[in-house]
Every structure is written in structure tokens, then in C-alpha cells.
């Protein structure tokens, strides 16, 4: 599969930009989480068209599935309502923050304008067993990093329980 045609690319880009903007603009955190799920799903579609089929599946399962379920469950735990003041105070500082982010984006886009890293010649398009090659690389060249990441996940699981633990267990009196 080649990369997206122009029309499809602009449709995907518009959808992604709209959802990403909705994540940061909606005052209700539940709506933010749901818009973030939609952003992840659209990104999975873009990955699929960029010949990263397996990564697209992992994105759907891990991000749109597991990580977002974690977010939504924590939000439910907190009983969050519509926030009255969702954004930080200060008009000038807010304008400066938006301007700095816009500067970063503009600077990056200006840099990318002339990028031409094999944009015509090389592509993964003809490669049919990307997932197999990915697995071979992950378990040979990158096996040490893979194991270290497993260790990291174990440490994080223990650490998250230790940080959010309630004294006296789940039946503690408040």
C-alpha cells in the first residue's frame, strides 16, 4: 500500500487536528479523554497507511484500549464535574504560552519544508512481511532494550501501587 493520496491525507489531517484541539479545549476532562481516544484511533489509521500495520494494531490495543481505560477509570474515581476554571489565569501569560507553542510549530514546519529524505525513491510499500522483520529485529538486535523495558514496567507497577496506597488497606476508615 502506498502512502495516502492527497485528499485522504488532508481529511485525516483535518480530523486529527480537530480532535487534538478538542482534547485541550474542552473544559470537561471526560470529554478530553474521549476526544483523545478518537485522536489515537485516527492516528492508527494514518499508521496503517504508512505501512506500519502492526504498530497500528498495537496503537489501537495499547493506547486506545489500555492506557485510555486507565485514564477514564481514574477520572471516574475522582467524580470530576465541569471545571469552572479549566485554564490558567492571566491573559498576557496565556498569550505568551500560545505564541511560544505556535513558534515551535512554525519553526519546525519551516525546517521540514525542504526535507527530501528519499521521499520519492524509498518506501516500505513493496515489503509484505514487515511484522516478521519487526519481530526478528526486536528479539535479536534490540533484545536488551526489550528486557530492560520489561523490568521498567515491573518497577512502575510496584511504584504506582506504593504511591497510591491507602494506609490500612481498602477497608480503611476515612
Amino acid at each position, binding site marked *: 500500500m502506498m502512502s495516502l493520496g492527497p485528499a485522504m491525507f488532508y481529511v485525516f489531517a483535518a480530523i486529527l487536528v480537530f480532535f487534538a484541539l478538542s*482534547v485541550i479545549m474542552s473544559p470537561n476532562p471526560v470529554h*478530553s479523554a474521549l476526544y*483523545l481516544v478518537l485522536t489515537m484511533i485516527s492516528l492508527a489509521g494514518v*499508521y496503517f497507511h*504508512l505501512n506500519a500495520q502492526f504498530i497500528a494494531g498495537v496503537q489501537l490495543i495499547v493506547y486506545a484500549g489500555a492506557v485510555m481505560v486507565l485514564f477514564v477509570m481514574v477520572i471516574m474515581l475522582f467524580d470530576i464535574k465541569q471545571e469552572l476554571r479549566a485554564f490558567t489565569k492571566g491573559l498576557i501569560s496565556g498569550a505568551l504560552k500560545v505564541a*511560544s507553542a505556535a513558534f515551535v510549530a512554525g519553526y519546525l514546519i519551516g525546517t521540514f519544508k525542504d526535507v527530501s529524505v528519499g521521499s520519492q525513491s524509498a518506501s516500505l510499500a513493496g515489503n509484505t512481511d514487515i511484522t516478521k522483520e519487526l519481530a526478528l529485529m526486536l528479539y535479536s538486535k534490540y533484545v536488551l532494550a526489550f528486557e530492560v523495558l520489561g523490568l521498567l514496567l515491573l518497577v512502575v507497577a510496584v511504584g504506582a501501587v506504593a504511591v*497510591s496506597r491507602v494506609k490500612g488497606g481498602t477497608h480503611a476508615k476515612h
Partner: protein
Amino acid sequence: MPSIESLNQIGLNHYLALSAIIFSFGMIGVLMRKNVIVMLMSIELMLNAVNLSFIAFSNFTANLNGQIMVFFVMTIAAAEAGVGLAIAVMIYKKFKEINIRYFEQLRG
């Protein structure tokens, strides 16, 4: 000025520009929101933008190392979300509100 041809031929730079725009949205979210959970979601947005640029480079240079790197970024993002949400739970238990300004009073 971009010509019509550069708008019609979707190449690496288009995906990188999209990635930069999403990254800047995540940056605005981290800078301007007060809710810790929404800030964590904005961080996820930024990580996803970086993943998009990795995948785009991987496709347009026919090099699979970028996709491996996306795996690692995803794992670390999940770990970061777990720890961040645990800290958010702690803030809520102490102050009954998840505002970033309570972060500095969170001793121990």
C-alpha cells in the same frame, strides 16, 4: 510559497508538519490546563506526535528501526501514565481536587 505541486504530492514533510502541529497542541495543553489528568493527556498527545514522525521517517526511508523505537516510546508512555495517575490519586486524596497548584505541597 508552496506550489500546487507540493500540496498535491504527499511526502515526508507533510507528515512531519502534521506531527509538529499536534505536538504544539500538546504543548499548549501542558502549559495552560490546570487539571493534572488533562496535562497527562496532553503529554500523551505530544508522545503520539513524535510517534507519527518516527513512523513517517520509517516509511519514507524504508528503515524499520523507527517502528521499533515507536514500540519503546509506547511502553514508556504507558509507564509514565501509570505513575502520573498514581500521583494524581495522591493529590486528590489530600486536597479533594486535582489542581496542579497543589503539586508543590505534596510532601512525602
